[in-house]
């Protein structure tokens, strides 16, 4: 098999075939929009109150204690909110109306297990393990067949698992296998349904990235840069998911979170830079499985909570705003006496963003992406269309 035909085979993979039989025109029309979407998942429950801090809330300083010190001189977003000082690129995006923060949001999940919470966040169900595939994979079934997705990880994360074949990639320290061995492996896997599909993806991805391995995606900026290259390539992906960990700040939160947010900021900065003019057609979503306790615990950290912040960034975002139906931080306002009370569904945020971004009917998108969640009124004007 030649290089080119291998790639073409993947583009016409099982699910793509189905779509093209009746959706080719739609594919053409939609492909012309050229829209990009990146989902950066914060695994471990990121503290939204320590990212976009409600410094104007009268209860804020008292509840957050030493954690509030980080915001003493932090840039104000408006009368109510300030941004963590480590997020310099993102502050710039906010200034140019390309960053939008949605506060006091949560998925429908209300317990405090990371693993169940991430499952709900990624599958788009209302309880853990209710759905077997991810909302990002289901989004692909609504898009033209040419719109491929890639996970920046060695394996495919839950949000991208499902009926549509998805590639995964993380820079490898191993030398490339020889072409002859690759060809023989292809033959050996012919009769194995699972391995055949996996191998076709692997060889296709390798071709797109063989000259990118030198990027060494070990740090956040390099990963953002790598994702930008995947998204900018002519035959590349339109949708990417990047996994980040290290947000579970039970102890010593100030220093650890500053490092995490700096990494996230650099990743977004590298995405913007790497995408160049395509940035104008891009939306980056940053979201976490749940927030953290409002009060500081005994080890200068915070424990598992509920509401947190979600971020939308990109040239296609109608930003420069913080959207929140703010529940307040006074003791009486907290969820179960400990957490930021969620007032907005993360599913509503995601559904509204993606339907506007990709020109889908909001209700169709919501039913497909979050089939178990009761329909809510979509949020308007999150994205410039």
């Amino acid at each position, binding site marked *: 098999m030649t290089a080119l035909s291998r790639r073409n085979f993947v583009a016409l993979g099982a699910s793509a075939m189905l779509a093209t039989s009746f959706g080719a025109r739609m594919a053409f029309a939609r492909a012309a929009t050229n829209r990009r979407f990146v989902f950066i998942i914060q*695994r*471990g429950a990121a503290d939204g109150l320590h990212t976009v801090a409600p410094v104007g809330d009268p209860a804020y*300083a008292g509840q957050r*204690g*030493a954690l*509030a*010190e980080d915001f003493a001189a932090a840039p104000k977003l408006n009368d109510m909110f300030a941004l963590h000082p480590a997020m310099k690129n993102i502050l710039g995006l906010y200034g140019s109306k390309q960053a939008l923060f949605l506060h006091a949001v949560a998925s429908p999940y209300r*317990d*405090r*297990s*990371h*693993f*169940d919470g991430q499952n709900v966040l990624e599958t788009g169900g209302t309880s*853990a393990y209710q759905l077997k595939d991810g909302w990002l994979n289901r989004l692909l079934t609504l898009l033209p067949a040419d719109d491929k997705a890639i996970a920046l990880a*060695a*394996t*495919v994360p839950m949000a991208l*698992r499902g009926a549509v074949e998805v*590639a*995964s*990639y*993380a820079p*490898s*320290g*191993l*030398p*490339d*296998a*020889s072409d*002859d*061995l*690759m060809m*023989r*492996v292809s*033959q*050996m*896997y*012919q*009769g*194995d349904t*699972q*391995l055949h599909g*996996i*191998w076709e*993806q*692997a*060889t296709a*991805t*390798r071709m797109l990235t063989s000259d990118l391995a030198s990027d060494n995606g070990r740090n956040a900026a390099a990963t953002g840069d790598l994702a930008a290259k995947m998204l900018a390539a002519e035959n590349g992906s339109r949708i990417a998911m990047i996994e980040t*960990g290290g947000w579970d700040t*039970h*102890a010593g939160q100030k220093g650890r979170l500053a490092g995490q947010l700096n990494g996230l900021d650099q990743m977004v900065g590298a995405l913007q830079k790497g995408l160049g003019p395509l940035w104008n057609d891009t939306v980056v979503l940053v979201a976490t499985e749940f927030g953290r306790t409002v009060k*500081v*615990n*005994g*080890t200068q*950290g915070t*424990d*598992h909570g509920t509401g947190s912040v979600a971020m939308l960034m990109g040239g296609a975002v109608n930003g420069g705003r913080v959207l929140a139906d703010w529940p307040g931080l006074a003791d009486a306002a907290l969820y*179960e006496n400990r957490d930021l009370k969620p007032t907005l569904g993360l599913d509503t945020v995601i559904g509204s963003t993606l339907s506007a971004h990709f020109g889908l009917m909001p209700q169709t998108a919501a039913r497909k992406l979050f089939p178990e969640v009761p329909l809510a009124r979509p949020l308007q004007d999150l994205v410039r269309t």
Partner: protein
Amino acid sequence: MSDASIALNRFGLGARPGEDAGSDPRKWLAGQIAAFEPRPQAIAAQVPSTQIASELADFYERQRLLRLDNPKPRTRAAAPARPAPAQPAMAEGAAMQDMQAMQSAPAMHPGMQPAAKPLYQGEDAAMVARREARRQQQQAYVSMVSARALTAITSPTPFAERLVHFWANHFAVSADKLELVGLSGTMEFEAIRPHVMGKFGDMLNAVERHPAMLLYLDQAVSIGPNSPAAQRQRGKRGGLNENLAREIMELHTLGVRSVYTQADVTEFARAMTGFTVAGIGRARGSGDLGGEPGSFVFADRLHEPGTRTILGKQWSGEGEAQAAAVLDHLATHPATAKHIATKLARHFASDDPPAPLVARLEKAFLSSKGDLPTVYRALIASPECWAPKPAKFKSPWEWSISAMRALGTQQVQPNAVNGLMGQLGQPVWKPGSPAGWDDVAGAWAGPDAVMRRVEAAERMAQRTKNLIDARQRAAELFPEALSASTTQSIARAESPGQGLALMLVSPEFLRR
């Protein structure tokens, strides 16, 4: 797959050349329960947690002395206004003891190694000390990874070794923070291995008292808000941390979404206060707890006094006995039996554990009060584990160990296994989360992951210098289990080395 092939590959870690499950594969497996060696030579040669901990304690002491030499301007946390004591930094009991230690100690106390030299301009003494400490801990880590691999590769009881890996992943710690780098492996060697063929409750009690677990899930710094230590630091916040208590219930025993509530977690966290580590526990106000650095101590002064209500029961015990009684209760709870039975069934039968098998294992666990060999015997006797089609996609660790066993590897180069596991996406003792690595194909059967195995297989095969005939080796390792397509691919390889690489990435070899 034949029964022999299932015993060697699904229950074991892949055959070594010459290894034979005998005429009765079930008997071969059951025999490993008694034959298991908890402390084989390669593992006995590793440094114990107490030594790792005393190296860490030396590092912390050096850091502290350096801070005293070069005090940084400190911004005090928002505390209630009160008259400043004469010497604020020395007012607390712990700091007072530190001061005494400082005055009686020479600038460098015995046992502290001489400082290394800066590597680059601007590297100050604290950075040099940190780099040195990291190097020292990393060295111990790499050595333990090799010992774990060598033990698995050469073991005559591979089913028992698989169970060690299973339990280490069940009670996962992750060597990400400096204090866990060297300690993570010692937990498997000191708390898991001795109890793999014993009672689940004994393993649970050993793990939850091991310094690696106590530090990893922040238990060592958790302070009861009404404990003597908290009382002495009037005005400062209480220091309860519910991280370990939650994960014990969610991951180690009862299982998520089972029988406990948030209130149970918080109450259990209160009962657990006092569980800490000598020398390196670093709970505020704990002072000198006595004991060898790294050893478990129960510190009364950190413990939250009073009766606790957990799972609808009153726990009136005092001190360590209170949490110990809760742990014993959790160890034999029906929810725990179900949780453990499900995980074992998933590991040995299918990603989607068959309900009758789970029920049988659950019963064996409950009726024997968590006697693990009884559960293993039920596993071996269950037809669901002997389904002839390959049931599981191997994790990178399983694949690497079975590959090295297949090649007859006798030794490993110092950093080889550590490097390989990083490249394949499953660095040892670094799952990054207390839930451990996923045990389903979806976690491992990805395009990039398979590509990396192909790359690694080619490199491993090249090192055998064409000395192994892959046709004969494949037939020996997979008795009556090779497909025609694999046999043909190997037979048509252009060299013995390429044949071996194909064998290592064949569908039969990627699954078990």
